[in-house]
């Protein structure tokens, strides 16, 4: 909701629909590390996608393709839950 709205115009109960929200670019929150994937070790279990709190795991349909660095906060959850070690945290050069 880009502008402050009167109570009459707000969605009832403050329900938020995707097209009404500004998607914050949380990638700027990273403090030195970002995930890097070795696709040859990936078994496409999608645990990283399930655990990622910021929609930073990119899929093509149901196939893992990598990360959206503009959203990744560098929390490392994906690297922790990856069962094959296909994700590791590397220095963030940005």
């Amino acid at each position, binding site marked *: 909701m880009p502008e402050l709205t*009167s109570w009459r115009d707000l969605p009832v109960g403050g*329900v938020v*629909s995707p097209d009404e929200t500004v998607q914050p670019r949380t990638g700027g929150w990273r403090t030195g590390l970002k995930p890097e994937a070795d696709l040859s070790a990936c078994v496409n279990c999608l645990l990283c996608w399930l655990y990622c709190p910021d929609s930073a795991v990119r899929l093509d349909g149901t196939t893992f393709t990598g990360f959206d660095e503009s959203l990744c906060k560098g929390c490392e959850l994906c690297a922790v839950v990856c069962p094959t070690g296909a994700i590791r945290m590397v220095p963030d050069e940005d």
Partner: protein
Amino acid sequence: MRTSAISARVMTGGEAAAEAMRQIDPDVVPVYPITPQTPIIQGFAKFVADGRARAEIVNVESEHSAMSAAIGSALAGARTITATSSQGLALMAEVVYIAAAMRAPVVMALGNRALSGPINIHCDHSDSMLVRDSGAIQLFAENAQEAYDLMVMAPRIAEHPDVLLPVLVCQDGFTITHSAEPVVLLADGAARRFVGDYRIPHPLLEVSTPTTQGPFAMPDYYYELRHQQVAAMAAALSVFDEVAEAFEHISGRRYHSIEPYELEDADRALVCLGSTGGTVKDVVDELRAQGERVGLLEVRAFRPLPVDRIRAALRFVPWVAVLDRADSPGGRPPLYAELLATLHRTDAHVQSYVYGLGGRELHPDDIAGVFARMSQERLEPEYVGLREAECPV
């Protein structure tokens, strides 16, 4: 009187509420037992066990969980009813506020019971008053018939798109929940058709239109979102009338948000909630037979409180005594405070009488005593039935 009623059966208010729930046939009933509400859920659970109702009963570990589960299921898209009393409602209280804010139309059957402490299982209205400002609608039944009828009406009021608020159907613990009297039930099909299908604007499980519900609100939006409940409560008054009119068509029984009784020429009137209204009506009849001009204003909708109608109903009554079955230590009893504000700048002398806390009986003689005493100015609350009170009974 046009009616599709099939039978009058002798049953308690608790059983009547359970029958209403069976006929409504909700999808989900998250509930935790507590006296004097227990007969409601016990009766309904038996209907489910016997295959006469299909609801998913969720046996939660507390009332806090019951109300939380109720919000989840109501917003997911399932018609949801719960029931509680006293400490149960106290434990639900923080979640009742959230249900109202998230606009979850949960129907709640309440067996009114005194809040601890001391611990007590009998009737007063302190539990209702605890959630007075929660944004939940509160309808008070006078007897088992009304408890049944208001339960059948409640889903349509709660789920109306202009309302979308929890509705508490309040019946006095034991006095109504456990007292057997004749109750006329609707035919199952008529009740079911009356409540209709459950529809809410944004079911959470509608994955084609995903939503975030219950988001955090900062100072820039909290105030506006809270104010939406004020508008919803205002709409609920006319929705109550609409639903009551539709209900009259199938039952022959018409409900109003207030019920004036013998007020036209009254020089003295009592105002009260719940089963006490029935006793007061008897006393009014007796005193009228002796030529006394007394009357009653029974408040059926405590939230939303129909202030304009109350003002109109009492506009020619010089002496008004408000009976509160709850107190506010250090302040004014809740219904009295409402009436004082409602009748501000009228000529009415408004007085406060507290009674019946923790199930203390209120006898017809007590009520006649209030009528006898109220024709002189009193500014402080009186405590009817309290030992060593200024006005002993």
